[in-house]
């Protein structure tokens, strides 16, 4: 069993290599976008089903933003909610059975290598670092638009502040990546530990393996939610630091 930290390439579209993580995150984006468009088109006064869930999430973050920043915090809610929805749907999609286990056996460097067709969207550093970059850049952008570029630059009189901004990107990115990737590894280990221990790779081993996996599975559902929530709330808190300062 080989655990690859990097996402595996499946095919190329022109110069862009498409990895299995990207495929999963595209699916998540597609599902969310379609759900958003359908809900927007059939928007009802009395919410039902998906609309109810979306409204609930939006209201939760709106209340949080008003609590942390104040009435003007409502401006930043769309970005935060999109972070949350994208991360949580991508996390939960990666828990669907088949993600990470359906794939192709390819020959690479003369060795037989298993390449899964799907891999959790956030189990790839590219995705999480992209999200972290967007979050940090958006924070700076909101800071400038709230207090003007001159006042905003006063935050960086101490050069350590710049270091802390850069480290925020890695902190965001690695936290999300590490949690989700570690979760996938945990599930994989939980499912295959009997196979490894008994050295009998029969399909029957999947049954006790699945039972062993169940508690980890539930835990991963929880982790998927918590990580999405942490990412969204931390973004909101960092925005509030730059937006709320008194102009003196």
């Amino acid at each position: 069993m080989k655990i690859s930290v990097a996402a595996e390439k499946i095919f190329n579209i022109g110069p862009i290599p498409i990895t299995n993580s990207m495929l999963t995150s595209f699916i998540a984006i597609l599902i969310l976008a379609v759900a958003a468009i359908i809900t927007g088109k059939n928007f009802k006064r009395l919410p039902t089903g998906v609309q109810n869930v979306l409204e609930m999430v939006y209201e939760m973050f709106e209340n949080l933003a008003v609590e942390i920043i104040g009435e003007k915090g409502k401006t930043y809610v769309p970005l935060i909610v999109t972070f949350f929805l994208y991360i949580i749907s991508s996390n939960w999609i990666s828990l669907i059975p088949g993600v990470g286990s359906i794939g192709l056996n390819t020959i690479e460097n003369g060795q037989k290598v298993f390449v899964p067709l799907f891999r959790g969207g956030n189990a790839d550093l590219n995705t999480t670092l992209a999200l972290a970059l967007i979050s940090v850049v958006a924070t700076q952008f909101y800071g400038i638009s709230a207090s003007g570029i001159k006042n905003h630059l006063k935050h960086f009189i101490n050069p350590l502040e710049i270091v802390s901004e850069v480290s925020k990107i890695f902190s965001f990115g690695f936290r999300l990546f590490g949690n989700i990737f570690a979760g996938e590894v945990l599930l994989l280990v939980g499912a295959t530990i009997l196979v490894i221990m008994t050295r009998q790779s029969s399909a029957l081993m999947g049954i006790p393996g699945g039972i062993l996996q169940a508690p980890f599975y539930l835990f991963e559902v929880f982790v998927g939610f918590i990580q999405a929530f942490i990412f969204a709330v931390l973004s909101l808190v960092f925005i509030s630091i730059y937006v709320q300062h008194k102009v003196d």
Partner: protein
Amino acid sequence: MDLTKLAKGLAIGLGAIGPGIGIGIIGGKAVEAVGRNPEAAGLVRTMMILAIGFAEAIAIYALVISLIL
């Protein structure tokens, strides 16, 4: 002798000590806070989850290191 496996184990094992203690302290303090001020339970829970997220990130760094090695 290949010490890579030992290094992997030490990286995540030692790296998990600090965050483990930290998360324990955070959880304990949060419970204390809720016990002292039950009305603020919601706020305390949010703060606790955020703080645990910060503490946990350190263990995750160690995990990443051990996976890369």
